[in-house]
């Protein structure tokens, strides 16, 4: 107890030095907090936009191979009686909607130009649920499921050099293997924000596409949940309870198994965060180390005196460990408070404009929402790191012989 008292008061003894050390810890923890807030928000945004760009939370087909080959050969994976499967899934409370979908590759041609596109077809009445992040930037969405109409992504429209109102010819391979072609009207142009999607996709009504391909069924059901957090729960229900008793052979994939771009981006940002964290850890270790070494050498005589009075080496060690740890803890707590405060202020002022990240063609206003667990994570980080930084100085404090320490000037 007395040792803790001495440590605590020693922290306040050299105020300027303590303040400088605190400042370096605080700056470090603030930068980690703010940066993790930025990443958390951006990753949340990317996750939700990926899911709502057509991925859904869960995808159901008849075989795992569909997710590899499905767009080239949708006919091998058709779910028979998909409407009754849909009804069963819709009865799960966490499910918001189920969208039947068929995606096929087709050649689009207009005047002297043509382009290959992935045509995604789904019922026009629920399209805005699944594709709410696909903005129609020109014209309108498809309203009539049977209408011979098409919405082109921005990149595809540019490649073809078409505008709203133009007539395209769409050519594709039907279920039987024959080639089919039909004329469709471009009713709208869309943008998803993701360049790879905007350069590849076109959208049609489901009924029109089924007629064009001569199929009755779809190979894919996209399940959208009320919240992304329900993914595992519903997945487990489907895999463990529903599918085993279903007469249809079905296979379920979770969104994160399909979101390649999201996974890459997350990996990249997580690595970046680790690097920043490592830099902060090193800075804090050296700040504490430097301060504590100074503190030890400034108090050699005090150490000698305490030892002469019968204080054991372990208590001296503890005293300096505590001193470093107290600084680390205070720095950690203040750092987290300021970090969260700063995020709050930035969010209140409307966030910070971020130019388009790689692979995106639109910038966005980033908000900073550090996860709540980063409160104790960062405090523990500061705590552990300050313990590490104090080890050497504390050990050093026990190395003086008492007589030598008492002579020390």
């Amino acid at each position, binding site marked *: 107890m007395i040792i803790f008292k001495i440590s605590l008061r020693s922290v306040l003894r050299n105020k300027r030095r303590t303040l400088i050390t605190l400042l370096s810890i605080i700056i470090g923890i603030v930068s980690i907090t703010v940066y993790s807030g930025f990443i958390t928000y951006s990753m949340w945004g990317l996750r939700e936009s990926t899911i709502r760009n057509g991925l859904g939370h869960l995808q159901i087909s008849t075989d795992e191979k569909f997710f590899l080959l499905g767009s080239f050969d949708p006919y091998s994976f058709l779910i028979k009686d998909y409407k009754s499967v849909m009804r069963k899934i819709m009865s799960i409370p966490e499910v918001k909607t189920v969208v039947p979908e068929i995606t096929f590759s087709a050649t689009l041609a207009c005047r002297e130009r043509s382009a290959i596109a992935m045509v995604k077809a789904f019922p026009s009445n629920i399209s805005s649920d699944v594709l709410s992040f696909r903005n129609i930037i020109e014209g309108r969405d498809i309203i009539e499921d049977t209408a011979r109409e098409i919405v082109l992504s921005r990149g595809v429209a540019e490649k073809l050099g078409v505008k709203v109102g133009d007539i395209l010819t769409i050519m594709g391979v039907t279920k039987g293997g024959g080639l089919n072609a039909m004329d469709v009207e471009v009713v709208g142009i869309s943008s998803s924000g993701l360049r790879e999607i905007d350069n590849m996709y076109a959208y049609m009504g489901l009924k029109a596409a089924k007629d064009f391909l001569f199929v009755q069924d779809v190979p894919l059901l996209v399940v959208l949940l009320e919240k992304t957090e329900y993914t595992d729960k519903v997945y487990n229900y489907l895999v463990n309870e529903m599918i085993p008793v279903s007469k249809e052979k079905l296979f379920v994939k979770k969104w994160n198994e399909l979101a390649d771009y999201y996974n890459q981006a997350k990996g990249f940002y997580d690595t970046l965060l680790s690097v920043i964290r490592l830099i902060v850890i090193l800075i804090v270790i050296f700040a504490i180390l430097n301060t504590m070494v100074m503190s030890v050498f400034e108090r050699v005589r*005090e150490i000698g005196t305490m030892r002469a009075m019968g204080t054991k080496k372990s208590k001296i060690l503890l005293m300096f460990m505590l001193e470093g740890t107290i600084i680390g803890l205070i720095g950690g707590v203040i750092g987290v408070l300021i970090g969260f405060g700063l995020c709050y202020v930035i969010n209140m002022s409307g966030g910070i404009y971020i130019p388009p990240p790689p692979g995106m063609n639109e910038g966005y206003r980033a908000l900073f929402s550090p996860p709540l667990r980063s409160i104790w994570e960062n405090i523990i980080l500061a705590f552990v790191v300050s313990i590490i930084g104090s080890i050497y100085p504390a050990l050093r404090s026990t190395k003086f012989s008492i007589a030598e320490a*008492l002579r020390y000037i």
Partner: protein
Amino acid sequence: MEIVKTENVRKVYRLGKTYIEALKRVNLRIEEGKMICIMGPSGSGKSTLLHIIGAIDYPTEGKVFVYNTDLSNLDDSQLAEFRNKVIGFIFQAFNLIPVLTAYENVEYPLLLQRMTRRERKRRVEEILESTGIKHLANQRPNELSGGERQRVAIARALVTNPKIVIADEPTANLDHKTGSMILELMKDLNTRYKTTFIFSTHDPLVSKYADEVIQLMDGEIVNNIQEDKNDNF
């Protein structure tokens, strides 16, 4: 009864490549309850001898018995306990813990022992009273004068009821008048508590407070004078 006995104590320091013989075969016996002064010029080995008696330094050769204990038989942790219970230290530069108040400084050695809060309070207050600094209990060392600081240090040295108090040049950082007052206080406490005091000085005026003066020169005892109070030394 003998409270300190040294047998052929020799201490050699290494300073870079040379060796310095700080003590050469010192044989010393000190009776319990006495006030002993170790005199000698600087570099004569006074501090080294006090440190060895005080169990904070080891002799290179020879044996030291303090309070019937052979110090060479004790390990680090046992020595710490021994110092805490048997020995009190007073230093030239007072060496108070700057972040603790006078009261807390005096209480410190008791906190290293198992003792109830009530007993600690009783002892600290009694010794603060005896050393005349009760009114300074809540001051920090930097708020005290040199004489006041040394009184706190004396109180701290005596609070554990040690058998021996070792004081290395206790008056060297004080003016003459304050120094005399400190020695009078030490003498008074020596008489009252029967605690053995061993102090060093190079000031002949200070030595008159001692029952016995040990003259040290170049690491050897050159005489061992029974102090005659009437003799003008």
